[in-house]
């Protein structure tokens, strides 16, 4: 229990005490980790509570997409890509993790605004809980992926133990992107829709359903500036090719991940006080 004496002598809140928001927010989020965990649990529970398929819903989306894409494209890429279902599925689940997490960071902030305007919470609470839910879904999808690998005869190799690294980088990129667009969305609601358009463009500019080699040299070069290209490549190598991701890919993916997280986190935390005024 609280020691009332201690609690009342210490100044718990002073509006003029403003440590750098970038680091202060990290400390606050850590202090509220139990809440973030509960939000993740709550999100997963609510999603599956009233549905017959339960956890299957998470898997249905990538599985159906995999099936449709396999039917549509496996003939087209027959010679470039053997085991097309695994190729497509591994790219898809990382893509869905990134797109859903970054979009959820935005929608959760808007959804959570009724809490944020009534009680103090760290401003990044909802982005972090969106990330947590995304990671849980990704784990379920990975389990499904392994089943697909076993069925289609793609060997499950020890290189798969590299996967946490590309997942971490994808998480950083998704969080940074989500926070950056959340800040914009707090000013302009149409940013949410615009982000969806941006995502669909990015989807086709990432080698998820096709191999990078089908593109022209120029286009391949240009796509190096798309962080998702490196993330998907780093994620896919241990699964599809059974080898560790190469250093150059990891290096570029890390660079994009750090840059996007630092930009997203600092833009969001420096504007966070304003955001509550606008919710």
């Amino acid at each position, binding site marked *: 229990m609280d020691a009332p004496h201690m609690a009342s002598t210490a100044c*718990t809140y002073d509006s003029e005490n403003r440590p750098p928001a970038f680091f202060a927010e990290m400390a606050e989020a850590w202090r509220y980790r139990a809440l973030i965990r509960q939000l993740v649990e709550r999100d997963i529970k609510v999603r599956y509570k009233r549905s017959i398929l339960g956890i299957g819903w998470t898997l249905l989306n990538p599985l159906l997409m995999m099936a449709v894409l396999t039917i549509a494209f496996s003939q087209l890429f027959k010679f470039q890509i053997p085991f097309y279902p695994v190729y497509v599925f591994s790219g898809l689940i990382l893509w869905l993790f990134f797109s859903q997490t970054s979009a959820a960071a935005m929608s959760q902030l808007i959804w959570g605004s009724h809490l944020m305007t009534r*009680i103090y919470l760290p401003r990044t609470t909802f982005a972090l809980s969106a990330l947590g839910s995304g990671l849980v879904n990704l784990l379920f999808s990975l389990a499904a992926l392994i089943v697909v690998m076993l069925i289609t005869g793609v060997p499950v190799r020890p290189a798969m133990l590299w996967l946490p690294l590309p997942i971490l980088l994808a998480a950083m990129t998704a969080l940074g992107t989500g926070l950056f667009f959340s800040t914009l969305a707090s000013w302009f609601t149409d940013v949410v829709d615009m982000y969806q358009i941006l995502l669909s463009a990015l989807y086709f500019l990432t080698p998820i359903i096709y191999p990078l080699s089908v593109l022209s040299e120029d286009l391949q070069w240009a796509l190096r500036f798309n962080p998702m290209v490196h993330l998907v490549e780093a994620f896919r190598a241990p699964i599809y090719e059974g080898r560790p991701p190469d250093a150059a890919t990891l290096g570029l993916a890390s660079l994009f991940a750090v840059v996007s997280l630092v930009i997203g986190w600092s833009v969001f935390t420096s504007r966070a006080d304003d955001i509550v005024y606008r919710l």
Partner: protein
Amino acid sequence: MVTETRTGDVRKPPLATAAETSDAIRVENLSVRFRIPQERVSSLKEFAIRRFRNRVSFREFWALQDVTLSVRRGETFGIVGRNGAGKSTLLKVIARVLRPTAGRVRVHGRIVPLLDIGAGFHPELTGRENVRFNATLLGRSPAEIDHAFADIVAFSELSGFMDAPLRTYSSGMAARLGFAVATAWKPDLLLVDETLAVGDEGFRAKCQARLEGFRRQGTTMVWVSHDRNQMVALCDRAVWLDGGRVKRIGPSAEVADAYANSKAGDEYEETRP
């Protein structure tokens, strides 16, 4: 008219030197500004077009202006004023939800805002899950929640409903559960917005008794209330806010009467144009 502000009322409370250590809340020259776009520009496209033509204008709205007050530890402090006078904004700044635009707010002790009971409830989750979530929202640890859980259920009188989803609760039941969670632990500082209309007559009495108990044990309370009698009965001192400014601070009966008189005056003027 009794409504003239006496500047003497706005000064810091007596015992100014002791106040440094005995104040639970100190608000100094607090101002809060909202910037409202003149025309509602909510899309980026629209903003870009208007910006280009130099036509984005903001209307500044000062919800609070130069408010200075302090609440002593253990005191029950009332806030009165019309709609839009800045009462809720003041509570939000104290609760750390809004940052001051100017001025300073210092709070000693742990705050529990009893602002909108059950804002954190989710309809699909059970009573049990919602209790856990709301208690976590108030910063309680899992161990503390386990420890207090039986108490919360008993106080809410909802022991038969803990495993039912919240959407099956009546609004009265949800409010009872929300109040039980929010007040399961004695806070250093309790912020209460508006009259507590929780459940039936019997339950209301129970709520009042619990709050009264906190008060006796030294919890500092800040009340926003429209009910003059409640204000006078509960509060030691009160502030009257008008248009975001302090109109009067003093013993609750004095402030409540001054405020009531000003309203009576307005009504009189309204009937005789």
